[in-house]
């Protein structure tokens, strides 16, 4: 039976609108649903929007069946939500349209209008939420409900001047919502058609801070007994789409919020650009708590994140059950993909010694040594014949034959395991074996996708025939499924990596220059590739990121932001210090190691960084050579000596 591939749609959002949302185990859930303001950060597809949607009244109140709680959160399953959340999904084009208006009429005016715009939006949405809840739940329409009084109060709040106060078509919440939405839309139309500040001033009453929204929430509390203890969430999704001055408006709203209003916002990791408010002061840490969906923003920990395991496991099975309605128990990702894999075995599986005479000679020699029991891994053999001493003890390499127990212990150590990863790439390079994509298993998929559910779904899409076969066998009691072949996984992962690369923009970033986002990625890959060459391996492990200790000029920052959106870079910002690495998803494409990009960053000046990114090809090549020479040259002697440029 041919089934539709359920992984074709890679967007996690698909789960939000048409399928259940899985709320994973999280001790912070109670805190999230409190009055504290939260910023959720994560990479694309990490589930930021899903969390905000859980707070949205349309799901939390009206479509509770769409929420699947982890067993530890069962106390939330049957109780009425204590909150009413409404969501604002920031739109990308706003950046351009609002920016153009700000350029024409000034930041201060733009901020006045934008704050007002958000105020009217949230007021309209809370009125809409109340209207919908009252239509659905009869208990909200009791004797204590004073709708007419509430409408009056909201009208006075939103249109303080009697002369401009609109007359409603009928005295209903629905008509009121329509009027408030009209103001919001009118502001937006004025901005997109670049109407002057003076003409906008004629039809709106400017709001300051979030008082208008807070007061409306208070009026809802006081006019409906059933809702008197509810709190209200203003949810803003993807604040990274806003300009800095717009974000200052959002920060001002947040700092100004008080009972019963709270803000929950989300941003792509590394792109929440400013904590400043309109008055120039910064938002305090306690004003806005940050929750990272990628475990401490440290990508090295992604593969160990249980939270991510739960989410991927849940989404994977939700998708499977769409096409396998008879599937009763969940399929374990650790079982179907394998938890880990042996890189040497996979490499040997993918490599035919006959494809290169030199490699054949090397391979035959290795096999002879292996049969004698000296070597378990091809990478160890290569390291030894190239005299790459990994141990500080210069006699270490001789220990292998004289002391087999110590030798084995050393070879199974973490230092050797890490070195082996890099070595595989050097062997591929030395013998021109082409791209042999040694990536496989659930842990590595989590690692190279950096917590991106979308990329995970893309890999599943590619593996669908194997997944389908596995599930069929799982359902059939007479059969025992076996994990998906590591080689097939490697091919699927490589294909997704190539697709991400293909998607990077290749249009020139500047007039009269061919440098594009794609070329910048190529340049960095050439640099990082040099660090897995033999000369580098002798001295240190690979380097997959650059560190800049100064504030980046805005043009470079914009380019980096664009490349991050193409999922080709990842960035770690610590104060004014940046670490920029190639996204691990590109590692299979560029044949680079897949360890954390932020290990051993190479420190570079802004000046060199600019030439590396935007200079012409020959200038960039000179920078690459200079960095390589400085790094490798400075690392003479012992492995851990002279690492002045390396963190």
């Amino acid at each position: 039976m041919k089934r539709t591939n359920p992984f074709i749609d890679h967007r996690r959002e698909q789960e939000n609108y048409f399928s259940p949302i899985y709320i994973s185990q999280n001790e912070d859930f109670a805190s999230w649903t409190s009055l504290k303001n939260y910023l959720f950060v994560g990479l694309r597809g990490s589930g930021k929007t899903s969390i905000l949607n859980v707070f949205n009244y349309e799901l939390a109140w009206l479509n509770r069946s769409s929420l699947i709680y982890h067993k530890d959160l069962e106390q939330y399953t049957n109780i009425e939500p204590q909150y009413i959340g409404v969501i604002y999904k920031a739109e990308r084009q706003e950046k351009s349209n609002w920016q153009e208006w700000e350029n024409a009429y000034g930041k201060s005016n733009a901020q006045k209008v934008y704050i007002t715009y958000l105020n009217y939006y949230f007021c309209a949405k809370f009125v809409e939420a109340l209207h919908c809840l009252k239509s659905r739940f009869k208990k909200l329409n009791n004797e204590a409900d004073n709708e007419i009084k509430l409408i009056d109060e909201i009208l006075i709040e939103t249109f303080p001047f009697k002369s401009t106060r609109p007359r409603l078509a009928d005295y209903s919440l629905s008509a009121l919502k329509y009027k408030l939405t009209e103001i919001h839309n009118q502001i937006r139309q004025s901005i997109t058609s670049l109407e002057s500040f003076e003409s906008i001033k004629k039809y709106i009453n400017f709001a300051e801070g979030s008082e208008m929204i807070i007061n409306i929430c208070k009026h809802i509390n006081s006019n409906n007994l059933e809702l008197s203890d509810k709190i209200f969430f203003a949810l803003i999704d993807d604040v990274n789409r806003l300009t800095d001055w717009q974000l200052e408006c959002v920060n001002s709203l947040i700092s100004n919020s008080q009972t019963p209003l709270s803000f929950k916002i989300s941003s792509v990791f590394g792109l929440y650009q400013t904590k400043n408010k309109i008055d120039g002061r910064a938002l305090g840490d306690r004003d806005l708590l940050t929750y990272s969906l990628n475990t401490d923003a440290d990508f090295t920990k992604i593969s160990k994140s249980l939270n991510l395991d739960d989410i991927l496991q849940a989404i994977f099975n939700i998708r499977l059950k769409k096409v396998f309605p008879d599937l009763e128990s969940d399929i374990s990702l650790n079982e179907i993909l394998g938890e880990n894999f042996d890189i040497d075995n996979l490499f040997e599986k993918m490599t035919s010694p006959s494809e290169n005479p030199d490699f054949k000679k090397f391979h035959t020699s290795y096999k002879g040594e292996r049969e004698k029991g000296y070597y378990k891994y091809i990478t160890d053999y290569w390291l030894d014949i190239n005299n790459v001493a990994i141990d500080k003890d210069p006699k270490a390499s001789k220990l292998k034959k004289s002391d087999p127990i110590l030798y084995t212990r050393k070879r199974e150590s973490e230092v050797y395991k890490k070195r082996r990863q890099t070595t595989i790439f050097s062997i591929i390079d030395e013998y021109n074996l082409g791209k042999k994509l040694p990536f496989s298993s659930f842990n590595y998929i989590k690692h190279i996708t950096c917590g991106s559910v979308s990329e995970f779904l893309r890999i599943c899409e590619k593996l669908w025939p194997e997944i389908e076969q596995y599930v069929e066998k799982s359902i059939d009691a007479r059969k025992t499924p076996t994990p998906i072949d590591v080689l097939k996984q490697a091919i699927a992962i490589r294909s997704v990596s190539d697709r991400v690369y293909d998607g990077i923009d290749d249009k020139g970033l500047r007039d009269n220059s061919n440098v594009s986002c794609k070329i910048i990625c190529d340049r960095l890959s050439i640099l990082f590739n040099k660090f897995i060459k033999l000369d580098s391996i002798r001295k240190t492990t690979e380097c997959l990121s650059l560190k800049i200790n100064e504030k980046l000029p805005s043009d470079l920052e914009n380019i980096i932001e664009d490349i991050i959106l193409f999922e080709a870079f990842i960035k770690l910002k610590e104060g004014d210090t940046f670490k920029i690495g190639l996204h691990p998803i590109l590692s299979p494409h560029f044949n680079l190691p897949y360890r954390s990009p932020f290990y051993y960053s190479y420190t570079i000046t802004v000046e060199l960084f600019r030439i590396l990114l935007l200079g012409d090809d020959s200038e960039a090549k000179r920078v690459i050579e200079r960095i390589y020479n400085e790094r490798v040259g400075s690392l003479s002697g012992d492995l851990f000596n002279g690492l002045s440029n390396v963190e």
Partner: protein
Amino acid sequence: MWNKIDELKSSSMNIEVYKSEDSIIEEEYDLAIIFNSFDSRSLEYAKLFEKKVFKNAIIISFQSDKKQKKDNLIQHQKNMGILCENDPIIISDIDIFDYQNNLSKILVQIPIEALQINSKWFMDISGVPIIYTISLLKQIKRVFPSPILHCTNFSGEYVSDAPSHNQFSEGYSRDIYIPNYAGSPDFSKPWKYVFLLGWEGTRSLSVLKKCEPDSIEIIITKPGYKIGYEVEVLENNKSFLLDCGAQESNYIYVDAGNPLQIIREIETIYLKSKDVFNLCIVPLGVKPHGLGAGLFGCLNNDVSIMYQIPKRYKLHEVKRGQYIWLYKIN
């Protein structure tokens, strides 16, 4: 002879589509709006008329240092000497990227006698960036009394098959809503984007990556202006199509010259999805498809239409192809 191909009647607009290989137009117009373009195709409209048929004319010419464009402007002026009763109003040397100001400049130049009941206007859309055509269209439909608008479009014959010849723009600076088409979306709802695909595949991919629509629909030109047009479109948009995960069976194919087919296809999508999604149309393909998107946006104010501003427009020669299309918008 003009063959009536299609017709759409709605409460606010009637649209008729005609096609011909070599007919002339015998009607008379109160105003002609002519955009000076680089290609020779955009001069062809003059051959449709045999006498003075325009009472007034506005010629718009953007800044350019290309001799061909300067020559074309002179030719337009000569054409109007033959076809127009009054001296044409010339708006020249304006920056093509200054959309809002340019639109205002054009609108203020419209003579009052062209704004009477049953006034009839003519515009050739063959060489005009779609942002101007449909922004003006919506403005025209907003005024009272709204004039009857006749638009012509000449199918193109491309002088080269080289990939670079198929690029009509370079780079992109920003994504904006086309003036008057910001729509009135509900920002709590997800977005469905309708991509009208063209030759420039990185444009679609860039919109997809930057705007991250929650759902998409894909419309491809078929038949196009030349045999195999759609194959090139699919090839050029390969990365986009792979990235969005669209199913080939869901691609919608629409004739290059007929904007009414586009309206109907978008309407079907709109009716199915309007309760769940905000709708945004992204016209990246042929001009009649862009016109169709604009007409749909005139009929449905809540819909948004997006435009990706390029860093520069690339100028190529396009000759007149086999067909002339005439759209009567009332």
